[in-house]
């Protein structure tokens, strides 16, 4: 929203010594975030009011040769006659008019900041032309190029600075609407100005429209307009006035209103519409003007019979912008005898649009349910200035006062008035103590400061107990109208001694705070506390730290586990941590052979690429392999730690989807490489794991894994994840050739797993024996079986030992293979002699013979 600082200054006297910069900073810290400060003054440098003295047509062209009087401006350019020569092609240029002249050397305002088109002295058809006479479009106030702007001679003299005449020298603030979502009053200049007064510590002087909230319009005749609201929740109040419009022709002059509207980002239409918009900008209350005759004709009635009701789904209405909308049941319609004439709060209907020939007007000033209008806004994508204000909840109180102001400014004779007000609400009254205010803010504001601060912006404050000044004699009840002495019941009666008096002086006051009618956002104590804190400045609150006992914080074990894994995987195992989106395409889910229907589907996704909430991490990582290969990376391993879910995983106790944190790894290595890394990871974690061939369930859960080259991982006999090589057919879908291995691990089952703590360090004092053993076994003998056989024997022997695989050798075409191990053992109690050592090796040979292996 754009706010002109000069307009604010027309409502609030800014204390001397407060610069614009300081004022803007204070607005930013106590009222609303200022996104941008716009300074238009450089745009209008070298732009003057000029009087066209003579205007001769240039033969055989549409051009005119004009001589203009620019008063005291640009003496350097004036000719002997004191005039400046300009060639102008506009049809409306004529001698005697006041126009806007852009001097040579100046930039055409319309192009300012973009192409910065600079004017010069140039020859047109043989005539020198100094600068140009400008149209409203070239001045930046209109989109259409029609004619040059004509200035009302009552407003200016030749030579006046254009910017000064049209108040363009002040700064314009572009403020962030979001932080005013709850403040409908601040969507009007007056409301905004009131807050500015408040943050400056000044009492705001209410303009008339806000002073007389009970304003009434007395119609001159007994003509009637009927209004019926079918549901007070949809429309708490609907006021309207009927009057004759003497003339609605757009002014031939460039008006102040048109420029004001342009500054607010709006466009001038015609006097009637401009007035509704100007009043909306000032008060926040949108108005809508219907053409009376069209309204009556549409409804087929003698007099306007307005019915405000819900739309029926599918009901059609053509709006002012020409679009035909299909209503939903949440839309509210203004109807003429039940025929839709406007989509309430959003936009008027084409069928009752006012135009320059409009003779009679029904002017609406109403308020509607912000909830319904929000749905309207969403359903039809209407983001008009009016609906932006209505969806903040415009107060019903203001419809009549603003309507009265409108007819006053139009200076018309009102023939009929209606005011249906089913949604009348009581003023909000909050009782609060100064202690509660200071207690929550962490401040020490006096009762006086608090009361003044609230009263400055229109709250009525009555001091019920305690006192606002520092002595018992001045205990008063305070309202915004008068502050008369009133008896109090606590505090002072017993204030005998000086000390007690001192206690009382700092004692707590109870305040009865009545909100002004336009503050629909004040309901509870905290709302009052916010007002006091904000208006006096949060930045003035003294900082402190809470007192807390020294207790070690409790950190989510999953957070800790993830931190631990990052260090192991990235720092020790040289993997790369990726983050990929939680949303994936149905296509990706299908590619890895899973059912996309098991994924939670985002119904308003940004694109089909981001439609499914993922149920596994691995597919997202697989999707990132190819582009990284193409970028020249080799032999990398990617991992991600993130949450997944799936419909078949069900809901938890809170009836929300069961979420699981997973680790996904994708490695450009084979099964054995990944296995070694996984086992190393668990060794670092000190968690005991086992693995075995992929079960049918695991194969189904990870259909992209090649079951003959994959395994499932177990902790405490429960499957926690699966790893292995990806099927070639799946790799082809990802346009990948090399061997790729993956691991999907459910960390929920890892996070609580017991960590092994060594309780017995097995290092013998006596020398250990080291031997390399090679076993010849059948080609299909599992390595693990041979290893276990040796391991089991040594384990039973009571010795300290270790068995390490060394190599697996199987010559081409051979039916046997050689498995080599390095074994190391020692007796915990003595040094083994050579006979004992031979006996042990022999025993191992016997054991392995049992599985058909021989030592070679």
């Amino acid at each position, binding site marked *: 929203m754009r706010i002109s600082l000069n307009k604010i200054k027309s409502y609030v006297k800014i204390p001397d010594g407060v610069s614009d910069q300081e004022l803007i900073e204070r607005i930013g*810290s*106590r009222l609303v*975030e200022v996104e941008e400060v716009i300074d238009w003054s450089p745009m209008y440098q070298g732009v003057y009011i000029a009087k066209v003295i003579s205007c001769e047509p240039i033969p055989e062209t549409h051009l005119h040769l004009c001589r203009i009087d620019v008063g005291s401006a640009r003496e350097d350019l004036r000719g002997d006659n004191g005039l400046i020569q300009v060639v102008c092609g506009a049809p409306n240029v004529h001698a005697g008019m006041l126009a806007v002249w852009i001097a040579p050397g100046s930039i055409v305002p319309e192009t300012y900041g973009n192409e910065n088109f600079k004017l010069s002295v140039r020859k047109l058809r043989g005539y020198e032309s100094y600068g140009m006479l400008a149209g409203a479009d070239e001045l930046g106030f209109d989109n259409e190029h029609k004619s040059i702007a004509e200035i009302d001679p009552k407003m200016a003299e030749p030579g006046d600075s254009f910017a000064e005449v049209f108040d363009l020298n002040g700064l314009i603030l572009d403020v962030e609407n979001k*932080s005013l*979502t709850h403040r409908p009053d601040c969507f009007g200049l007056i409301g905004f100005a009131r807050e500015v007064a408040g943050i400056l510590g000044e009492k705001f002087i209410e303009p008339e429209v806000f002073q007389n909230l009970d304003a009434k319009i007395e119609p001159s005749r007994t003509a009637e307009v009927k209004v019926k609201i079918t549901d007070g929740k949809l429309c708490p109040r609907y006021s309207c006035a009927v009057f004759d419009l003497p003339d609605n022709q757009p002014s031939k002059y460039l008006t102040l209103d048109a420029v004001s509207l342009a500054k607010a980002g709006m466009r001038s239409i015609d006097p009637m519409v401009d007035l509704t918009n100007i009043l909306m900008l000032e008060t926040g209350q949108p108005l809508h003007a219907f053409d009376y005759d069209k309204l009556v004709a549409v409804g087929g009635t003698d007099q306007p019979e307005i019915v405000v009701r819900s739309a029926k789904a599918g009901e059609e209405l053509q709006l002012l912008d020409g679009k035909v909308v299909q209503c939903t049941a949440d839309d509210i319609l203004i109807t003429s005898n039940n025929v839709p004439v406007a989509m309430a709060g959003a936009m008027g209907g084409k069928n009752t649009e006012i135009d320059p020939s409009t003779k009679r007007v029904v002017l609406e000033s109403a308020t509607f349910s*912000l*909830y319904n209008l*929000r*749905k309207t806004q*969403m359903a039809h994508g209407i983001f008009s200035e009016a609906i932006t204000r209505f*969806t903040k909840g415009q107060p019903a109180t203001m419809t009549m006062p603003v309507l009265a102001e409108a007819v006053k400014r139009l200076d018309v004779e009102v023939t009929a008035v209606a005011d249906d007000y089913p949604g009348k609400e009581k003023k909000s009254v909050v009782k609060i103590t100064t202690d509660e205010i200071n*207690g*929550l*803010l*962490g401040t020490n504001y006096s009762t006086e400061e608090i009361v003044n601060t609230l009263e400055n912006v229109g709250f009525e404050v009555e001091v019920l107990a305690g006192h606002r000044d520092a002595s018992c004699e001045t205990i008063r009840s305070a309202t915004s109208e008068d502050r008369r002495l009133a008896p109090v019941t606590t505090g002072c009666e017993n204030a005998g001694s000086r000390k007690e008096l001192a206690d009382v002086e700092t004692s707590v006051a109870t305040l009865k705070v009545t909100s002004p009618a336009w503050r629909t956002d004040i309901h509870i104590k905290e*709302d009052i*506390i916010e007002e006091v*804190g904000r208006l006096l400045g*949060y*930045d003035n609150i*003294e*900082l*402190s*730290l*809470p007192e*807390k006992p*020294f*207790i070690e*914080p*409790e950190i*989510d074990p999953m*957070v800790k586990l993830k931190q631990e894994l*990052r260090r192991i995987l*990235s720092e020790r195992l*040289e993997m*790369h*941590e*990726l*983050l*990929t*989106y939680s*949303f994936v395409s149905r296509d990706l889910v299908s590619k890895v052979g899973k059912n996309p229907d098991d994924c939670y589907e*985002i119904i*308003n996704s*940004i694109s089909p690429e981001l439609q499914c909430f993922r149920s596994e991490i691995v597919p*997202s990582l697989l999707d*990132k392999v190819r*582009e*990284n290969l193409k*970028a020249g990376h080799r032999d*990398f*391993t*990617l991992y991600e730690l*993130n*949450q997944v*879910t799936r419909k078949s995983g069900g809901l938890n106790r*809170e*009836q*929300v989807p069961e*979420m699981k944190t997973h680790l996904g790894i994708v490695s450009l290595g084979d099964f054995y490489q990944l296995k070694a890394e996984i086992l190393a990871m668990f060794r670092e974690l000190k968690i005991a794991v086992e693995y075995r061939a992929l079960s049918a369930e695991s194969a189904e859960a990870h259909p992209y894994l090649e079951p003959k080259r994959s395994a499932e991982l177990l902790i405490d006999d429960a499957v926690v994840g699966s790893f292995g090589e990806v099927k070639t057919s799946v790799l082809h879908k990802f346009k990948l050739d090399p061997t790729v291995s993956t691991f999907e691990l459910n960390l929920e089952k890892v996070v609580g797993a017991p960590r092994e703590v060594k309780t017995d360090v097995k290092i013998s004092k006596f020398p250990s024996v080291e031997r390399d053993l090679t076993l010849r076994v059948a080609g299909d003998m599992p390595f693990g079986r041979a290893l276990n056989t040796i391991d089991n024997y040594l384990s039973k022997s009571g010795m300290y030992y270790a068995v390490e695989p060394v190599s697996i050798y199987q010559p081409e075409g051979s039916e046997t293979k050689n498995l080599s191990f390095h074994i190391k053992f020692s007796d915990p109690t003595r040094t083994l002699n050579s006979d004992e050592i031979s006996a042990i090796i022999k025993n191992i040979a016997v054991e392995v013979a049992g599985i058909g292996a021989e030592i070679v």
Partner: protein
Amino acid sequence: MDRTYRLSDYFTYLYSLYLISRKHAIIYSMSDVEKLKLELKELNSEYAKIKTLPPAERGEFGRTMNAKKQAIMAQIAAAEAEAESANVEALDISAPSAPNEPLPVVKRGTIHPLMAELDRVIEVYSSMGFDVVESRQLDDEYHMFESLNFPPEHPARDGYDTFRTAEGFIPPAHTSTMQHRALKKYKHKLDEGGEIAVVVPGRVFRNEDVDATHEHTFYQCEGVFVSKTATMGQMFGVLKHFFEIYYGQKLKIKTQPGYFPFTEPSAELLIEKPVSLGGKGGDWLEMLGCGMIHPNVLKMAGIDPEIYHGFAWGGGIDRLAMLKYGLSDVRYFESGKLDFLEEF
């Protein structure tokens, strides 16, 4: 004396000649160091004569011999150093490897910069005594809005641009979705006379068009503090303290008003741009939204707002990481590009 020569004597003579020649041959073939060592050995054996000298001469003799010995030893040390250096082949230190050798490979892994930042944030808050709970990535209307005092259909919900699933679940648009749960989880601490102090990091989602400064997926960290005496002054104090630890310097803070249905009063916190980020004073960075927890939010979690007060805040982690590393495009984070990761 019978001076007949015997053959054996002759051989003895020849042998002695051989020994002498060998000795010379050895001396010839010896390096400087070995020669010096031999000299030292001879000196040592000469030194043994000291016993045969009259005691009065022994002192002078010892000193002279010692000086000689020291001189030789110094020569040996110098010669050894020279000899060692002469044997060393000089490297081309600018080359990545020796000629004909494979290039050395130093593999490194990477922690995602966003996660490194998130972990750092968690570390700072936990060092300040905050418990840590993780946010969830699919939630419901109740936690996302209702428990946070957003009336149904309230336009304030629009600001959050939420995604929805067919079932009506919401990938949360802020970590505040965990506030209600955090309050309930730690309510017992209040009952035990303590306070609630918890931060909630997590991934959040907003349905908005992606560009250099907007991502639909990003990370936030929420903070919640509740006690009998919590004040807004404490809130600003805690947050200032956090940023001072995080940036390792004293900082100025300021605020601007904000609006969140779940806090009252609400504010946005700015910090003066830290020196480590190139701040020269006078530049302000919007860091987070914060406010005193709305009594309705406390009530809904079963906490009596007449007795307890609290404050809450939430801010983006992506922004912290972008500021720290001078990144201009938020889209890198979720791009999955190793080229990006290897920059860190």
